[in-house]
């Protein structure tokens, strides 16, 4: 069933655990990098162009003019309304994620300027529970919309998510209409929304606010799919095209406006911000 994707993807596309392979090893060409090398290269492989995951804070540092970012809603945290317990309690997973990532949730929002253009940022982070969207992520994204409306500045949204956060049950599904309603408020206020889809943008996030940007660009090689390749294969036994679900296929099929390598994204956003100013 297609809804399995939400967590399948989260697991499948999670960075491999460190004990198996060093996270700075390029999965495409096998090149190794020191942390500072990768950081200087915006987490893009200098050999083959593979885009490593980029954390929310690093991305904000890269997009925003120095010293302009003012975080909002930093204190919003997930609760555990279902007292969800599978092999481990959800509460424990949350605590661990915060500890490992230094983030309170899978999204960071705030005000910033990009090349002097004031913007609102809403940036997801895949390392926090696979970027999954629960009540906290939904709330933070919605507040970013409101803040953009209040200030009359464009919203720049960066997505990276395996989908809805299963551990919050039906409330995680409700973050789809919640964020959609927030974007509709944005639309009604004639505030632009520019979306950058990073790997992976799937399931519940793709099926809600991620797909509603006025202009949508994607990172090269990003998986952008409602249902990921493994579940499609398992469910339908179809033969998958080589680039199934990748940004390149999505461009060909008309779902996104452009694929922009990370190094060019800031300039691309600045150009768009001038157009929507």
């Amino acid at each position, binding site marked *: *069933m*297609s*809804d*399995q994707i939400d*967590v*399948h993807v989260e697991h499948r596309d999670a960075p491999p655990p460190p004990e198996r392979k060093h996270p700075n090893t390029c999965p495409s060409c096998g090149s190794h990098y020191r942390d500072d090398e990768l950081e200087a290269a915006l987490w893009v492989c200098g050999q083959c162009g593979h885009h490593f995951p980029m954390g929310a804070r690093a991305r904000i540092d890269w997009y925003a003019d120095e010293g302009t970012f003012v975080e909002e809603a930093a204190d*919003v*945290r997930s*609760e555990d*309304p*279902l007292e*969800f317990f*599978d*092999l481990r309690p959800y509460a424990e997973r949350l605590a661990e994620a915060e500890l490992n990532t230094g983030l309170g949730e899978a999204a960071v929002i705030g005000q910033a300027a990009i090349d002097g253009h004031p913007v609102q940022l809403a940036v997801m982070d895949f390392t926090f529970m696979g970027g999954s969207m629960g*009540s*906290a992520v*939904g*709330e933070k994204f919605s507040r970013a919309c409101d803040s953009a409306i209040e200030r009359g500045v464009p919203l720049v949204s960066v997505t990276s998510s395996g989908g*809805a956060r*299963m551990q*919050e*049950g*039906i*409330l995680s*599904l*409700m*973050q*789809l*209409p*919640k964020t*959609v*309603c*927030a*974007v*509709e*408020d944005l639309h009604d206020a004639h505030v632009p929304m520019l979306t950058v889809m990073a790997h992976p943008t*799937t*399931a*519940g996030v*793709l*099926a*809600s606010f*991620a*797909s*509603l940007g006025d202009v949508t660009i994607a990172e090269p090689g990003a998986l*952008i*799919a*409602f*249902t990921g390749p493994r*579940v*499609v294969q398992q*469910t*339908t036994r*179809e033969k998958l*095209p080589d680039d*199934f*679900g990748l940004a390149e*296929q999505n461009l060909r*099929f008309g*779902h996104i406006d452009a694929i922009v390598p990370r190094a060019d994204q800031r300039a691309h956003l600045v150009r768009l911000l001038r157009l929507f100013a």
Partner: protein
Amino acid sequence: MTERDQELNLRRRLSGLSRLPLLRGARVDGEAQRLERQLERLKADTSDEAIWRSVELARHADRPYTMDYVERLIDDWVELHGDRGRADDGALVTGLGRFGGRTIALIGHQKGRDVKERLDRQFGMAYPEGYVKAMRVMEIAERFGFPVVSLVDTPGAYPGVAAEQHGQGGAIARSQAEMARLTVPTVACIIGEGGSGGAVAIAVADRVLMQENAIYSVITPEGCAAILWRDAGEAKKAAAAFKPDALHCLELGVIDGVVAEPAGGAQTNHDEAAQLLGGALLEALEELEETPGEELRRRRRAKFRGMGVYA
């Protein structure tokens, strides 16, 4: 636990609702009374066994589907076909008809009763084209002021190569956005399986109801079990953990009411099930029709924007 203890427990649970953000002013008038009326229903069994019974009944092969209700509740039914682009998706039925003396637009998943129909309708799993068709009918409803009734009954949106290539994620997002834009009254009811994005795509309504034995969930119990317990056989355990049943959805503020079914489940008596569903839909519509369209939209968005539990 005595019956008295149970009721006390339920009352506590109900009062606990007011801690949820969606009850902090975002809800419509009369909400408290409506929930009050649900108290009786909340006395029902909410054990893990009861949840699993809902899962089984929601998927029961004899459960009434959208067209069974259309036959019994709608006069002058005219089905509308096609997305005006590339397909007519049989998994999602759309049309116009008379219901309680007014014209409504109806949108509903249709699983199919026999093998051939099930294949033709992809077991109720819609392609993007199905959601585009639904949006077209919503636009007609908006132009002519017809209320929109949607009946949700899908394991999820179709998970295939073509569905992805035609933009499944975007279609589900835009269908929700369209519902968030409407200024006509909208009522959705989960009448069987309310599976993930494929369900919520047509359920961004002023009133969201669930039949007593319907389920509404972000993932199937099997899918959840396969991932978290690494064993699809643990579906029952998974269902108990994420609680897709109507009573828990009501408790979490995700739905606005529970629609009774005939004793033993809707499959036992389609006529009675239709009568009960019809009554609930009509009550919801009549109440909504008193509110101006712009205000309906404002409240609808506020309701969904209030959903979730966070600190």
